[in-house]
C-alpha cells in the first residue's frame, strides 16, 4: 500500500493536505481543478518536493526522506522525459543502469523494450529525429526497463493531440497489464479516467481526498468537481 499519513505540502502560499492510501496494483486517476495541486501531490510522492509534515510509506517502509531515484517509482513529466543528445537506446539504457553501461544481456533487454513499444530498428535515432508520439514511446520503453512498482504520470502526453494521447494511454495500460504496477495519473479528461483507471483521487480546495470508484465519482460528482467538469 502507498500510504500518505497526515501529509502537508507547502508550495508558496498554497497548502495541500493528504491523508490517504492506495492499494498496490491499483490504477488511480488524480482529477481536480487546475491549480488545485495535482502536480504538487505527484512531485511530493516522487520526492521532488519535501513534505512540511507527515510521512509517506510504501508497503510498510517509510520513503518520506528517500531521494527521488531511490524510491520504488518511475515518473513521466509533462516534458523533458528524454535527454536530447542521447539516442533512443541510450535513453532507455539509463533506465536499466543509471550510468548507461550495459552488459550484452541488458542490451537485449533494451531491444525487447523497443520492440514492445513498436520502435524496433529505431534505437539509434535521437529524440529530434522521432515524432512526438515516438518520443513518448521511447520514454515508456524506459519506464518499462526501470521495473518500478509505481508509475506516476504527470500528463506526459498532453501535447500530443487527442487521438495520439488515447493511443499512448492505452499503450500504458497494455504495458503494465499483469505486472502489478501501481499507476497514478493526473487527468483532465474524465473519459481517460473512466477508461484507464478504476479509482480516482479528487484534489480540490487544499485537500487530496481518498480514492473512490472512478465511475461512481464521475456519475455523482461533489460540488467542487461539478463546477470543474461543467
Amino acid at each position, binding site marked *: 500500500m502507498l500510504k500518505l499519513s497526515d501529509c502537508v505540502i*507547502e508550495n508558496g502560499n498554497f497548502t495541500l493536505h493528504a491523508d490517504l492510501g492506495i492499494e498496490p496494483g491499483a490504477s488511480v486517476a488524480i482529477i481536480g481543478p487546475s491549480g488545485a495541486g495535482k502536480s504538487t501531490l505527484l512531485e511530493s510522492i*516522487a*520526492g*521532488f*518536493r*519535501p513534505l*512540511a509534515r507527515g510521512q509517506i510509506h510504501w508497503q510498510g517502509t517509510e520513503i518520506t526522506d528517500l*531521494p*527521488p*531515484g*531511490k524510491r520504488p517509482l*518511475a*515518473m513521466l*513529466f509533462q516534458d*523533458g*522525459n*528524454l*535527454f*536530447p*543528445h*542521447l539516442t533512443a537506446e541510450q535513453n532507455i539504457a*539509463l*533506465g536499466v543502469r*543509471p*550510468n*548507461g553501461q550495459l552488459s550484452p544481456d541488458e542490451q537485449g533487454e533494451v531491444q525487447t523494450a523497443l520492440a514492445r513499444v513498436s520502435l524496433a530498428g529505431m534505437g539509434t535515432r*535521437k529524440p*529530434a529525429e522521432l515524432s512526438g508520439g515516438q518520443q513518448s514511446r521511447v520514454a515508456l520503453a524506459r519506464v518499462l526497463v*526501470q521495473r518500478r512498482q509505481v508509475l506516476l504520470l504527470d500528463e506526459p502526453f498532453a501535447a500530443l493531440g487527442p487521438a495520439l494521447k488515447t493511443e499512448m494511454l492505452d499503450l500504458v495500460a497494455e504495458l503494465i497489464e499483469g505486472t502489478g504496477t501501481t499507476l497514478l495519473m493526473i487527468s483532465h479528461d474524465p473519459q481517460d479516467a473512466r477508461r484507464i483507471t478504476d479509482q480516482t483521487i479528487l484534489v480540490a480546495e487544499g485537500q487530496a481526498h481518498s480514492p473512490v470508484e472512478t465511475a461512481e465519482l464521475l456519475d455523482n460528482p461533489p460540488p467542487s468537481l461539478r463546477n470543474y467538469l461543467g
Partner: protein
Amino acid sequence: MVERAQPVSPLPGIGAAALVAALILGTLAAVALRAEAGGGFGPADWAALRFTLTQAILSALFSIGLAVPVARALARRRFPGRRALIALLGAPFILPVIVAIIGLLQVFGRAGWISDILGYFGFAPIRIYGLHGVVLAHVFFNLPLATRLILQGWQEIPAERFRLAAQLGCNGMAMFRLIELPMLKRILPGVLAVIFAICLTSFAVALTLGGGPRATTIELAIYQAFTYDFDLGRAALLSALQLALTAAAALAALRFSRGDGFGNGLDRPIRRWDGGAPIADALWIIAAAAFLLLPLASVVISGFAGLFETPALVFRAALTSVMVAAASTVILLLLALPMATAVATGRYGIVELSGILGLAASPLVIGTGLFILVRPVANPTALALPVTALVNAVMALPFALRILVPAARDVVSRHGRLALSLDMANMTFFVRILLPRMRAQIGFAAGLAAALSMGDLGVIALFADAQIATLPLQIYRLMGAYQMQAAAGGALLLLLLSMSAFWILDRGGRWHAEA
C-alpha cells in the same frame, strides 16, 4: 524548507573555488606582508599613480566619445558587411596586445603610413611614444568594446518607442532627447567604469609604448622594480597600491555595469522612421572600420614579408606559447566547469565571488605574490611557464564563468529531475549529461582562454630569463633589438595562432551539436 535535491554535487566546485581564492588571496597576503611601508612612496611612484589614472580616464573618455556616434550609426543603418563588422568588434578581446602594438606602430608610428603622408606635405612625423601612444592603443582595444556595449543599449530600446516618437513627429534632437539620451545616461557610466578598470591594469601597452618617468603605469613600475632593481619590497608596495586601485575600480565597474559584452542579437538593425544623417553615419562607420582594420592589415602584409626572415627562436617561442596556452586552457576548464556546476545547483554566491576575484587582482600583482612565495622553495625562473599558464587561467576565469554558468543552470533545471528520478550518479550526470549539453559554451570559453593565454604578455615578463620566452615576449625582445622585420613575422604568426586556437575550440564545441 529542506533544500531541493540536486542531480550533481557542488563539492568539487566549492573545492575549485577555494583553490582559486587561496591562490589569489594567498598571493595578495604575500604582497601585503612583503610591502615595505617604511620606504613610503617616492616621487616616481606618485608620478606612476598620476599617469595610471590620467591615461585610464583619457582612454575611457575617448573610447566612449567615439563609440557613441559609431554605435548610433550601426544601430540605425543596414548595409552589406554589417554583421561581419559587428563580429569584428568582438575580435580585439582575443587579439594579442603585442600584435596590435606592432600594427599601430606601422600605421601611426614615426615611420608609419600616416607620418609618411604628413612628411609628404612637409609636416613633422607623429610621436607615438608616451601618453598619446598609450591612450591610442587603449582606444584601439576599447572602442570596439564600448561600441558593442552601447549598441546593446540601443538594441534594447523597444521598437514601439521609435514608432511612437515617429508618430509624434519627433526628429533629430527631439528624438535624441526623448529616447536616446535617457538610454545613454543609463548605460554610459557602466561602460566608462569597465574601460577605466581595464586600462588601469594595462601592462603590455605601457611596456611597449610608454616608459620613462613621464609615462610609467603602476604595473610597469612593478615590473621595473623587479627587473631593473630587483627591489621586492618596492614591487610589493606598488602591488598593494595597484590592488587597492583595481579592486575599487572593479567594484565600481560591477556596480555600474549590468550586461556582458558577449550579448547576442546585436546584428538586428532597429527599424526607425527618422532619416538621421546618412552621410555622417557612413563616415563614422568607415572611420571606425579603418581604425580597426588598417593596423591589422598592416601586420598581415608586413608579417608575410618578415615570416621568411624570422629566426628559429621565434618558432621555438611559438611552440612554447602553444603549450602554455594548452595547459592554461586545461587548468581553466578544470576550475571553471566544477565551479559553474556548483553555481548552477544552488545559491553558492561564494563560488561566484571567488570566480571574479581575478578581476580585482592584476596579473603582475599575482605574479609578484607568487614570486615572493615561490622563491624560498624553488627557483622562480624554472617555474616561469607553469606560473604563466596558471595565472592566465585564473585571469580568464571570470569570463569563462559568465559563459558557462547560464548554460549549466539551464541544463540542471531542464534535465535535473529526470536524472534524479533515474537515480543517476553525480559523476554520470556531469559526464554524460552536463558536459555534452554545454559543449558549445565549453568550446567558446576554452577558445577565449586559449587565445588570451597565447597572446598574454604579463606575468611571463616577470619570471622569464633570457633562455625562456613565449611568443609575445620573444616579439617584444625583437622589437627592443630593433629587429622589426622579424618582430612583424612573429606578430603574424602569433595572430594566426591566437585566432586559430579560438576558432578551432569554438567550432569544435559547436560541431555536430544538437539543438
